[in-house]
């Protein structure tokens, strides 16, 4: 009994801690002007929210958030930031008032909506009692795949996943068509400098392949 109570208290404390970090990071992102710091802090935000997802047992979502949000999009945003200025323009006073009111209104509405949500892990909630339960029951006979997430993603909803794959491919294609394939810089570098001029020839090779 005490174990359960202590465990619940510990989880609640970690919850509060992670959400507090998220809050502080979000405020810092909103107030900073340096784009580099903002990109890095958004990576931190993703990593902390990934930890929080795992705390609420959404392991796959947390994994994806850590890989895509903290890893991939931080790197892509850094690359995009290098194409533009390093700092955001200073704002006029009171220009934040409108967005602030919108955020406040949306936040109040979301908090109001959480009152109707079922508790975490509630077995009678619609997500656990309806079609989710059916998948858990028929999955083993249908597919023989132990991980229901995989069998739902790849088998029951194969069309969805095909669409998502096509979306990723299309995104890569669109960015490459807009920005070029990045080969011009490669050809340029290869043509101009068999040895990069930034490094003196006395430095031993370090597997740089140049």
């Amino acid at each position, binding site marked *: 009994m005490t174990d359960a109570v202590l465990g619940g208290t510990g989880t609640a404390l970690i919850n509060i801690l992670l959400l507090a970090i998220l809050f502080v990071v979000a405020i810092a992102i909103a107030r900073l002007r340096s784009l580099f710091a903002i990109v890095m802090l958004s990576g931190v935000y993703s990593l902390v929210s990934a930890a929080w997802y795992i705390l609420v047992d959404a392991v796959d979502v947390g994994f994806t958030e850590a890989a895509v949000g903290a890893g*991939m999009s931080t790197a892509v945003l850094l690359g995009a930031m290098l194409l533009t200025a390093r700092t955001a323009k200073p704002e006029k006073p009171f220009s934040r008032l409108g967005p602030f009111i919108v955020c406040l209104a949306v936040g109040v509405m979301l908090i109001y909506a959480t009152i109707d949500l079922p508790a975490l892990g509630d077995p009678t909630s619609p997500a656990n009692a309806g079609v989710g339960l059916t998948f858990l029951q028929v999955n083993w006979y249908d597919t023989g795949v132990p991980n229901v997430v995989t069998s739902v993603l790849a088998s029951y909803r194969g069309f969805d996943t095909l669409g998502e794959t096509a979306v990723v*491919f299309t995104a890569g294609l669109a960015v490459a068509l807009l920005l070029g*394939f*990045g080969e011009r810089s490669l050809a340029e570098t290869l043509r101009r400098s068999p040895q990069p001029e930034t490094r003196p020839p006395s430095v031993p090779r370090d597997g740089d392949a140049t």
Partner: protein
Amino acid sequence: MKGDHHMILRVIAKCLIPLILIYAFYVQFHGEVGAGGAFQAGVVLAVALILHSLVFGLTATMRAVPPWFTRALSAVGVLVYAGVGVWAMLNGGAYLEYQALFLEPPGGHDGQHAGIIIIELGVLFAVSGGLSTIFYALAGRVAEIRDEDW
């Protein structure tokens, strides 16, 4: 001395990149029994590539993994995925009906396993190739501007 600035970074990255690649393949092939799957594995693969280019320079990475390869990989991934659907149709099933891959009765799982493994390979190719293409497009452009303007 200028080249020595990032020596620790290079040594650590050399140790880390193979581990990241192995982890990506672990996630890929344990998707049926654990968390994660082909999407995450593809992202992790692309992240290993990005780490290599951040530490060793974009040119070295483009020599190792050429841009034409990443975008071809992305297209091949989508084709592999769609091809499994066509394979099922050729056997008389519905599109992407894995049960029809080996013409099994309901309850047979070979087609399910094979279909899922193949489409996950397709997703891995498409995601890692597509994200690498995006990164190459952005990073390659930066290098070009830097050479001309600075």
